[in-house]
């Protein structure tokens, strides 16, 4: 191959030739050259010309965006529509056909919304990093900063171009998808619904895109390398959420009476632009009814507004950093001393806490926290050093900030100690009665089936014989909530509690009783603590005058107190609403032995009778079934309900669950004996008592 510079075989001749050519060029251009500095030929650098110029150098992004959006839009739509076609059986009644088509159009729109959201999220990352990539390259930065364009204008151009690269293909391919649906299904009157979905999808995806894109731009503006920008994106985007999660997990693991946080994850998600952007974007894309969930609670409304504010703040800060950023920061790590320290500090604490927590979970609860503390310190130091290496782009930087590293380790260990040793006295905290604005309580008398109030089963209106299973409420195993007085709330807080302490290799977790007032704790005798069913779980929610919720879950064995709670006005109604009608139409009731083997299966009429006797007796002897039910022997009665599932798709089947019949429920027991022709004790093992 010939070297590009080896073309000049005779330098002298070539030089003369070149000089004469240049001279000629100069002569022909003479007039123009003289004029150029003074006489403008064009109107100046317009926003559009810069936009086109920027676009010319990253056309590949538009091509990529278009390809992805084509496959996620028109291609996918056509694919799904062709898959759905066989469902539209011409033998169906017109109304049923329309219902089928509307259902499939709605499902398709749902899929499209999710895909649009994914494309928006991934697109925001690619377009954001790609658009501002010159900040990672010194030579490119020099070139961009040397041209006569204000940095603010350049920022606006690149930002707008990124936005257009996502939105133009979205609108274009979205419109094609819309047309495809219109052609295939338009005559069935689904167009207004599809169009509504399309607009909501656009709004949702745009929201997610803005949140993520703005964060990416901010992270790019503060970083000198792509690697640092990604690290910053992960840290700024997810560290605050990760903090919330670790605090949540550790509260659950180490505090005896932590139940749940007063703030749920969606509420708190505004601290993470990618998470909140996608979460709220999904709610918007899911449709107008679901979108109202954004404003479901005042807290969530505030969070939504905060998300928007953070999104705008991110881009304003990004703009400010971009405009004031020094050119020499390209190819360096991350800029901003304070910011860098905060990032190192936070990452170090997070790494320490998560590793310690994971080790504790894997090794198990042993009460020996030595390893836990050692590992937390090691990983805290490691993460701090690694962050320093990333930020400074030098392996020597591992120990560059020894003082700060020690500070981070100390902070990690202090936080760990707060949870392990309950330094803040979480478990013994008592809210003064005069601070209680209102309080509610729910009880669970330690049996899943017994406490199920049937909320999960919903009869389908207008469809006799059908019940539907509401998955969300099915998982709600707690009994009904009831309001209690401040005085009773005070009693609950001050009552003696049971908790499980150090691990005994022979017996598992050892139970203790403790008095939150005195802080006194007593290990329960082995024969007592092993029977740890002998308490009620009390879920307790206090609204304080200060506005903060106080949520606790106590294990209380004091039967007098539990009975007092159960006698609170409205408690019975809220807890024992189980009745035959609510459960739909049980097909069969099986009376089983201890091991679930059917002793007798009732006929349909018997089922109805059994249910009414059972529930009559149950409700009549509420107190017997209530707190005194503990320590009582019971018999398991299996109920089988036929149902039709209306959850995403139609299906039918049966659901089994148990009703426990207490030995003191003489009417039911007698009925069981009459039906089976056997004394219940003959098939219920005397030595293997079940306790409620």
């Amino acid at each position: 191959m010939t070297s590009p510079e080896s073309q000049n075989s005779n330098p002298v001749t070539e030089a003369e030739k070149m000089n004469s050519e240049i001279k000629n060029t100069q002569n022909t251009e003479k007039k123009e050259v003289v004029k150029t500095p003074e006489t403008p030929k064009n109107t100046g650098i317009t926003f559009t010309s810069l936009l086109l110029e920027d676009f010319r150098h990253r056309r590949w992004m538009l091509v990529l965006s278009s390809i992805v959006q084509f496959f996620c839009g028109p291609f996918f739509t056509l694919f799904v529509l062709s898959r759905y076609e066989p469902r539209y059986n011409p033998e169906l009644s017109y109304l049923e056909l329309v219902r089928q088509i509307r259902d499939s159009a709605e499902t398709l729109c749902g899929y499209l919304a999710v895909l649009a959201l994914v494309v928006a999220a991934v697109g925001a990352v690619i377009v954001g990093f790609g658009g501002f990539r010159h900040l990672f390259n010194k030579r490119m930065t020099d070139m961009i900063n040397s041209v006569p364009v204000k940095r603010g204008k350049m920022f606006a151009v690149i930002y707008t171009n990124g936005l257009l690269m996502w939105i133009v293909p979205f609108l274009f391919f979205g419109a094609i998808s819309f047309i495809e649906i219109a052609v295939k299904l338009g005559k069935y009157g689904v167009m207004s619904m599809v169009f509504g979905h399309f607009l909501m999808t656009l709004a949702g995806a745009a929201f997610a895109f803005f949140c993520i894109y703005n964060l990416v731009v901010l992270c790019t503006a503060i970083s000198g390398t792509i690697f640092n920008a990604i690290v910053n994106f992960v840290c700024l985007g997810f560290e605050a959420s990760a903090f919330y999660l670790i605090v949540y997990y550790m509260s659950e693991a180490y505090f005896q009476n932590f139940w749940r946080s007063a703030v749920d994850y969606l509420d708190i998600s505004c601290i993470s632009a990618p998470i909140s952007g996608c979460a709220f974007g999904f709610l918007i894309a899911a449709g107008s009814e679901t979108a109202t969930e954004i404003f479901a609670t005042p807290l969530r409304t505030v969070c939504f507004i905060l998300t928007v504010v953070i999104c705008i703040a991110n881009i304003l800060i990004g703009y400010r950093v971009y405009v004031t950023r020094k050119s020499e920061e390209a190819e360096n790590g991350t800029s901003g001393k304070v910011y860098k320290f905060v990032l190192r500090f936070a990452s170090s604490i997070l790494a320490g806490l998560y590793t310690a927590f994971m080790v504790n979970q894997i090794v198990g609860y042993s009460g020996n926290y030595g390893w836990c503390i050692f590992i937390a310190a090691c990983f805290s130091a490691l993460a701090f050093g690694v962050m320093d290496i990333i930020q400074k782009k030098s392996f020597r930087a591992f120990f560059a900030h020894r003082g700060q590293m020690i500070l981070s380790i100390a902070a990690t260990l202090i936080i760990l100690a707060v949870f392990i040793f309950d330094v803040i006295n979480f478990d013994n905290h008592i809210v003064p009665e005069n601070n209680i604005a209102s309080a509610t309580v729910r009880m669970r008398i330690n049996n899943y089936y017994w406490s199920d109030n049937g909320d999960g089963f919903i009869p389908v209106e207008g469809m006799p014989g059908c019940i539907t299973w509401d998955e969300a409420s099915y998982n709600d195993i707690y009994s009904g909530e009831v309001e209690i007085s401040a005085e009773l709330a005070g009693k609950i807080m001050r009552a003696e509690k049971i908790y499980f302490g150090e691990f005994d290799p022979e017996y598992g977790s050892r139970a203790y009783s403790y008095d939150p007032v005195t802080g006194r704790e007593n290990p329960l005798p082995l024969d007592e603590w092993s029977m740890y069913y002998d308490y009620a779980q009390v879920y307790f929610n206090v609204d304080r005058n200060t506005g903060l919720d106080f949520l606790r879950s106590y294990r209380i064995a004091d039967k007098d107190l539990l009975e007092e709670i159960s006698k609170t006005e409205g408690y019975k109604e809220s807890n024992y609403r189980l009745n035959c009608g609510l459960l739909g139409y049980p097909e069969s009731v099986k009376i089983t032995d201890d091991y679930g083997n059917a002793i007798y299966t009732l006929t349909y009429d018997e089922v109805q009778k059994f249910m009414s006797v059972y529930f009559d007796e149950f409700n009549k002897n509420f107190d017997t079934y209530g707190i005194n039910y503990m320590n009582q022997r019971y018999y398991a009665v299996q109920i089988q309900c036929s149902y039709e599932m209306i959850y995403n798709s139609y299906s039918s089947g049966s659901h089994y669950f148990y009703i426990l019949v207490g030995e003191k429920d003489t009417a039911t027991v007698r009925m069981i004996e009459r039906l089976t022709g056997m004394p219940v004790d003959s098939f219920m093992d005397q030595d293997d008592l079940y306790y409620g």
Partner: protein
Amino acid sequence: MIEIKNVSKKYEDINALSGVSFDMPEGQVFGLVGTNGAGKSTLLRCICGVCKPDEGDILVDGEPVYENPEAKKKMFFISDDQYYYPGSNSEEMAKFYRTMYPETFSMERFSDLMESLSLDKKRRIQTFSKGMKKQLAIMLGIASGCKYILCDETFDGLDPVVRQAVKRLFIHDMEEAGITPVIASHNLRELEDICEYVGLLHKGGVILSKDLEDMKLGIYKVQVVFKESASLETVRNNLKVISEEHRGSLVTLTIRGGRTEVETVISSQVPVFYEVLPLTLEEIFISETEVLGYDFTGITKQ
């Protein structure tokens, strides 16, 4: 005119420029010379508005340059390693600069220049040699029609033929269009041919900045043979001798001062032989920096 007033710039803990002040008169080729790490590139980057000085002001025709498109459109910066968009060809880069300098950039001029240098406009730049990339950067700079062309080590990597051609182009455009090339370089012999005005930087500060001829008039190299060693002592006492070198009885002195003054003092000592020689820019540079301790002659003794 470019006015540099008390400009300082720091990179973390390193002082790249400290209190640099001088003027770059327009219509002349300005040579920016300096020791390694003297701050030449930093100064150029500050002048063209890429970097913001930590202290001081840089004015281009009376206007501050940083974040001022009106001042920046008079300048074209050719860095020592010019950036080109990946996969682009010369024509696309020319279009880029036409967008950035819409009032002055001439595509026709660019095409003609590329043709005369036998560079293919359609060829992808990443297939160019280092020298060809430099040529392209210079052609883009000249075609930009900017008043000030800032060249950072631009002549490095150019073959002698192209180097001469570029010099001719600069001189031509200087005369015809009134451009002011500012050339930072280590290659002082190259600058000497073309520069009329020189700024000498060392360790972030300006040693001197003046017309090259004036500079040469103020410093002389004298080769002299004295009969007695006392005569040399008298010369040392009466003139500002910057450096001296002995080869047998022949002494070479670098002396600061007027030619008449130098000749008067030396001839008064009735030397066997003496000759006043003109100094090259390189010799001036070495002499001036040696005075400031920038001297590695002892390196061979180690």
